[in-house]
């Protein structure tokens, strides 16, 4: 079964090659090649998912040795001292991820056929998207961190190419380089983490690492002074921080909105950014083993969630709002994993992928019809675009955590886990606090977006007049994605008996249970811990409902009924608003101080140093030194020193040559004087030598 799974990643790869080489010449510029390829992958992924649903457990691996470097034993026989083995791992998590990724990707491919119609480099767009899908699926399938990292960076490349798709716009190029460089910061640390793993365990295969951690191998090894597991855990976390745009490396995601909207949907909502969280899930046993890293992960997640949510409030660009909401939701997932709620975190990843993809595609269809991204120029589109409105509204309900929708199920569990974590450890109350606050703010700004775009009167008549519903190819994906946002799809025990028995399908929890067994972390809680959890989940349910309702209420008052004047609040809040508007000045900090003033000046100075000083002083010129001497010794030397200056050590030798040549005065008698003087000196030494 694992061999067929390889096909999932190979189809889009083949599509990329075909598209890149012959895209332009194919009919319809070859968009059908990519779409067929991704649907093919979906077709292969579904039976695996079905097998998981029916049997509740699926496991298969397939390995091939990629690089073997021989070493010589004492006996002189060649053994393979370094053997990099790579392959495919299919377990419950992979099956779910495969299904979700291929589903979202297929729908987004379909959507972009309509959205990108008429674009100048149409065929290249599909080439890049296929390459990206191949990278993402490769990442999901790979059973070791090396190929994981390779696909990870391949996706980084595709996001660079796709963000910079409209390369005529300077802002797009800057955004693409910013994205690539920021993620690369995270990737470099992640790679060091992998190197650490090879150092500690000699392999980066997940299964091998799980077994080694269970066996308690290598708890005492230190790398460069730090305990090994903590350092590796931290480095792996930094990989996620880079890729999933967590604090402090979150600056690139909002700018990544420069790319076409399907790209934002596929890459910057559903899959790539989720890969960071997927990494945490894959490496959860390692993080858990190091005890120090998990709380850090939780705090990073919580802080990112809260900060991003606040910024989203003030955004006017529809895609920017969604971008910040993505960062915020990712913060949720990271917080979930951080507090040990590993299963809800993964669940939120899946649910978020669906409804966030739907939200982005809806915003895409809105932008496609009104040709602007600024919400202040929209309004009253409800009547004009009924299907887009309906699907977008469902997705908004899901993300705001309204019960009955998938978002509620996963977010509630995460908040429950966070609460349980803080109650258990009698500390860290900041994490659940930030969690609930973010939940409220999320509801607030999502409904603000809905009201500003669809409700109220049209602010710009010309655009309103043009608004029209999108063709079927674009609306069908919206409907399917909206459908997935309903809770029954993922229903699982919500802790409330009455609600639970209504939800017939518990497949998700069974799958996660099986996965935890494999990872060796199925913690069997002690009775009182069980009670604390139960109590926490009940409390969390109440709190999240209250907070979500509050958010929606405030949002409707200000933006639907206009009872509170948003402008007045803005003035009253004043400096806080500008702080939020400038995204806490992170951009200025990174780009301005760190890059412009710090790095580039340093380079310019170093290059000048290399060219002028090292090249000149050590090698080419003693000019400055001779200048200093000149100023002291005065006129006579001025004549001698000036004529000596030629070029560097060459100066010195040439200078030496010049001095020696001055003895060659041309007058033969002076030669004789010199010769006789040398002979007298020689005699003096001979005499001295004799004594």
């Amino acid at each position, binding site marked *: 079964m694992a061999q067929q799974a390889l096909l999932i990643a190979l189809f889009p790869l083949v599509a990329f090659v075909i598209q890149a080489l012959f895209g332009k010449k194919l009919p319809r510029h070859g968009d059908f090649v990519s779409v067929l390829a991704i649907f093919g992958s979906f077709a292969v992924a579904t039976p695996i998912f079905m097998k998981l649903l029916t049997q509740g457990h699926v496991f298969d691996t397939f390995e091939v040795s*990629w*690089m073997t*470097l021989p070493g010589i034993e004492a006996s002189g026989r060649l053994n393979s001292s370094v053997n990099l083995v790579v392959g495919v791992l299919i377990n419950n998590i992979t099956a779910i991820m495969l299904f979700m990724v291929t589903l979202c990707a297929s729908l987004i491919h379909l959507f972009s056929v309509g959205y990108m119609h008429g674009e100048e480099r149409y065929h290249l767009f599909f080439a890049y998207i296929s390459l990206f899908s191949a990278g993402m699926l490769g990442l999901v399938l790979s059973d070791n961190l090396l190929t994981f990292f*390779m696909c990870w960076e*391949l996706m980084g490349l595709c996001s660079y190419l796709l963000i910079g798709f409209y390369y*005529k716009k300077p802002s797009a*190029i800057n955004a693409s380089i910013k994205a690539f460089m920021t993620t690369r910061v995270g990737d470099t640390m992640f790679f060091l983490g992998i190197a650490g793993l*090879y150092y500690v365990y000699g392999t980066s295969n997940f299964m091998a690492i799980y077994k080694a951690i269970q066996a308690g191998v290598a708890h005492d090894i230190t790398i460069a002074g730090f305990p090994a597991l903590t350092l590796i855990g931290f480095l792996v976390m930094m990989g996620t921080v880079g890729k999933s745009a967590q604090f402090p490396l979150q600056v690139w995601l909002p700018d990544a909105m420069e790319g076409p909207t399907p790209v934002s949907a596929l890459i910057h909502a559903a899959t790539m950014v989720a890969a960071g969280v997927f990494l945490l899930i894959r490496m959860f046993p390692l993080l858990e083993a190091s005890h120090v890293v998990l709380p850090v992960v939780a705090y990073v997640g919580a802080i990112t969630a809260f900060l991003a949510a606040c910024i989203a409030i003030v955004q006017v660009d529809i895609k920017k709002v969604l971008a910040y909401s993505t960062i915020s939701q990712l913060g949720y997932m990271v917080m979930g994993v951080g507090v040990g709620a590993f299963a809800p975190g993964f669940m939120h990843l899946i649910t978020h992928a669906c409804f966030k993809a739907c939200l982005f595609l809806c915003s895409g269809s809105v932008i496609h019809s009104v040709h602007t991204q600024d919400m202040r120029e929209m309004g009253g589109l409800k009547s004009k675009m009924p299907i887009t409105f309906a699907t977008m509204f469902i997705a908004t309900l899901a993300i705001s955590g309204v019960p009955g929708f998938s978002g509620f199920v996963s977010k509630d569990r995460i908040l429950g886990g966070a609460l349980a974590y803080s109650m258990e450890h009698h500390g860290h109350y900041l994490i659940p606090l930030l969690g609930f606050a973010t939940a409220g703010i999320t509801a607030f700004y999502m409904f603000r977006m809905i009201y500003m775009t669809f409700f109220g009167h049209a602010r710009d008549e010309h655009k309103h007049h043009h608004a029209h519903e999108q063709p079927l190819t674009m609306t069908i994906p919206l409907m399917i994605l909206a459908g997935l946002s309903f809770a029954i799809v993922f229903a699982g025990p919500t802790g409330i008996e009455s609600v639970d028995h209504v939800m017939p399908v518990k497949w998700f929890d069974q799958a996660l249970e099986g996965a935890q067994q494999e990872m060796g972390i199925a913690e069997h809680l002690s009775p009182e811990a069980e009670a604390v959890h139960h109590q926490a989940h009940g409390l969390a349910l109440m709190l999240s409902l209250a907070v979500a309702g509050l958010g929606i209420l405030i949002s409707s008052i200000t933006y639907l009924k206009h009872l509170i004047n948003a402008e007045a609040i803005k003035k009253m809040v004043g400096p806080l608003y500008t702080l939020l508007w400038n995204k806490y000045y992170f951009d200025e900090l990174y780009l301005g101080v760190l890059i412009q003033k710090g790095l580039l000046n340093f380079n310019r100075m170093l290059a000048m140093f290399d060219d002028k000083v090292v090249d000149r002083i050590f090698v080419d010129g003693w000019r400055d030194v001779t200048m200093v001497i000149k100023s002291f010794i005065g006129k006579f030397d001025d004549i001698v020193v000036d004529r000596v200056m030629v070029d560097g050590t060459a100066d010195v030798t040439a200078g030496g040559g010049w001095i020696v040549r001055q003895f060659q005065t041309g007058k033969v008698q002076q030669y004789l004087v010199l010769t006789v003087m040398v002979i007298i000196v020689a005699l003096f030494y001979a005499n001295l030598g004799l004594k």
Partner: protein
Amino acid sequence: MFPILSVMTYIPLLGMIAILAAPRNNPNLVRWISVVATAVPLALGIYLYMSFDRTTPAMQFVEQFDWIKPFNIQYYMGIDGLSVPMVLLTLLLSFLCVIASWGIEDGVKGYYAMFLFLETGMMGVFCALDFFLFFLFWEIMLLPMYFLIGIWGGKEKVYAAIKFFLYTLFGSVLMLLVMVGMYYYSEPHTFNLLQLAQGHQFVGKTVALFGYQLPVDKLFWIGLFIGFAIKVPIWPFHTWLPWAHVEAPTAVSVILAGVLLKMGTYGILRMNYPILPEATLWASNFMMILGVINILYGAFCAMAQKDLKKLVAYSSVSHMGYVILGMASFTTAGVNGAVLQMFNHGTSTAMLFLLVGVIYDRVHHRWIVKPDGSKGFGGIASVVPVYTGIMAIGLFASLGLPGLSGFISEALVFLGAFSNPKFQTYVVIGSLGILLGAAYLLWMFMRVFLGPLNEEHKDLEDINWREILTLAPLCVLVIVLGVYPMPVLNLMGSTIAKLLTLFS
């Protein structure tokens, strides 16, 4: 049996003689002679690759007979895992460069004669196993390089040529002293590199210098290291590189970056490591520091460059830093990664230089940002799409993007170096190089290819078939080795394993 190595080395020499004899006013005949003179050794090289035995670390295709009996100097040629990749790289790049320099008009005979003479020198260096023969080929290469840079170079060609010649000669005269020293301090006086490596002959001895009794093996190690470090180039000795690369014609700077830089590291692995293992261990920390400096220094300087070729030159300094990092780690993965990086850097930098040459032939300037601050190039991706595509491949290969060859060797170097507990802090600092590498290459890609079109270059015509022919094999190599590196990696495995037994 058929002396394949000598034949491969001397066919270009025959080609040179044929060219000198060819009539003056027929440049095409000269070009075709040189194509044949490089194609035949390439074909033999492919046969060599096929029939090379990957399992034994011993020397293969050995040719050994007495040359100068009184000094026990032998004509001793042979290749093993270390030299095969370099030999193949030399043959391939020479063949491609001969095609790439089709556009040379003035002094065609002189140019191709010098070029073929250079190839003989390079082949000799990689195949020679007798120190005297090695030194002979090592210095012979300087002559054609001086004339190639000096006559067909850019504006400051004369200064660059003499600087290159003086620098490398300084290095190689130190090597001459070490060679003679090793001859007289080895028990049965010999120049044979394999015999010199037997029995740690130089460990105890000392020599008097300025009144002190200095240990002989450390002095030899330092002398050889300086000679080879100038070639690599390693940090304090690198200032000739930007000059020589910028002023040399395209094909020559490809060979300079593709092959000549590797001779330094190849020399260290061929001589310093096996003959003076104790001294190498003694100096491993020192080499690691220099490697890290090379990486960061090259990257930082590259960031501030405004000339395309100088940027690629400094990037070579940075990439060679990885090789030194890998070599100094004494781990299987590290050293294998280093030798693979020598091969991969050869292909990816050759691509970059060829591409810079393509744009230079059309526009006759290489300014990313003109000295007066105005834009050199801008947004030419829309005008020359195919060229941009190939440049992207070359760029991302040298960037170390997974899926292309640069990543594999960088990964091996870092995995290897990291698994040696002594050097972990160095590796962490060195990994900054990966980050900076991405920065300056992407900055260049953005400034030259993306953004609004610079009107000056509206009518730039795209890459033609001849240029594609030179770049295609390199693209294929870069991609194939990125996916499955074993075809090149298994060549060197057994030799490096045997080499490392000295250090375990």
